[in-house]
């Protein structure tokens, strides 16, 4: 087993060596370097650059990343389960294979409750309701379940 991981390490070293050879050695020897201030500006369709581009952006990416972690944790438990659920059935674990299956069913069901909660609240909705925000109520505050239900009930509200 150590041997196989050593092989992976060798593969990794090949990769790093290849990159360094290409970028730091081969290309550095061949490429020209002609400095010009205009070359160093960021690309903005030919316009002068306005401000820094390190700005704050949409919260939804953060939400997606958080839900992703929850699912990743779930999957981490699913992997060993998927591997043994048949084996346990045949080998007389407490209650047999059905027990292990129901165990996981309960586990996933509890997480699906959380997933549905997110879904019903409309956090999986990438395009939020536009007309609401235009009607002066302040957009993005649709935090209550009621508002979320309204949104789900009126899909036409999406632009």
């Amino acid at each position, binding site marked *: 087993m150590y041997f196989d991981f050593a092989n992976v390490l060798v593969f990794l070293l090949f990769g790093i060596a290849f990159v360094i050879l290409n970028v730091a050695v081969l290309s550095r020897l061949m490429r020209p370097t002609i400095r010009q201030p205009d070359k160093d500006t960021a690309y903005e369709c030919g316009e002068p650059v306005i401000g820094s581009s390190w700005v704050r952006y949409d919260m939804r990416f953060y939400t997606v990343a958080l839900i992703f972690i929850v699912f990743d944790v779930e999957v981490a438990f699913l992997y060993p389960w998927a591997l043994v659920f048949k084996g*346990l059935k045949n080998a007389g674990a407490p209650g047999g294979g059905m027990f292990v299956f129901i165990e996981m069913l309960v586990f996933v069901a509890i997480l699906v409750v959380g997933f549905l909660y997110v879904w019903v609240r409309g956090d999986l909705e990438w395009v939020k309701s536009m007309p609401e925000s235009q009607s002066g109520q302040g957009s993005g505050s649709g935090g209550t379940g009621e508002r979320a239900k309204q949104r789900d009930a009126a899909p036409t509200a999406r632009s």
Partner: protein
Amino acid sequence: MAAADVIFLVISIIAVGAAALAVTRKNPIYSALFMMVTLLVVAAVFQMLSSPFLAVMQVLLYAGAIMVLFTFVIMLLSLRPEEMGETAPLPQRIFAAVVALGVFALLAFPAIEPGVPAAAASLAPPAAEAVRFPPAAGTGDGATVEFGATAYFGHTIFGRFVLPFELVSILVLAAVVAVMVLAKRDLSKRDVADDGSDRDPPPLSVSAAHAGSIASLATSTQPTSHGPGA
């Protein structure tokens, strides 16, 4: 020294060095980068402790998921230079040092106290338990379930630790709900906060067809009042 010792030494040096860098960097994205290195190296330590499944989960969950979230948050906040690199006040730093030393002592305790490894060993499943659930032919990871293999985790979690496993799902559910509440509260607070704080981005759901579209970028650039070339 055996080869394994040399490898462990190298790994430890990288882990500690990267951790030190993660703490001392002023730019949070570098802290995230070096923390990722630390987590990857810890995965290698798990592998050396003959626990490949744990090593892979370390990479998948910590390096591949949680650090991605950290990176997201750092990119999301986009702290300006004057907002980062503020050193904490002295009492806070002293307190942090004390806590860090305490945690270190707690972790180092088993190494110096001879009674602890024995007690820990008595908690570990007896060797016979590893073969209590022999996988049927054609299932599981080969004929025997070796310690640390994926199937070993399956047998242990779903045989011996059923209740903790189910409780984990409750914990994760609580996390989901908390996530949504926290994320939402932030949003609604920004909506009502009209005290003119120009640090707050505009309401975040105004973007049109695509979040992060050019339109939303333009609107969120304005109030942060960056001068050209900032």
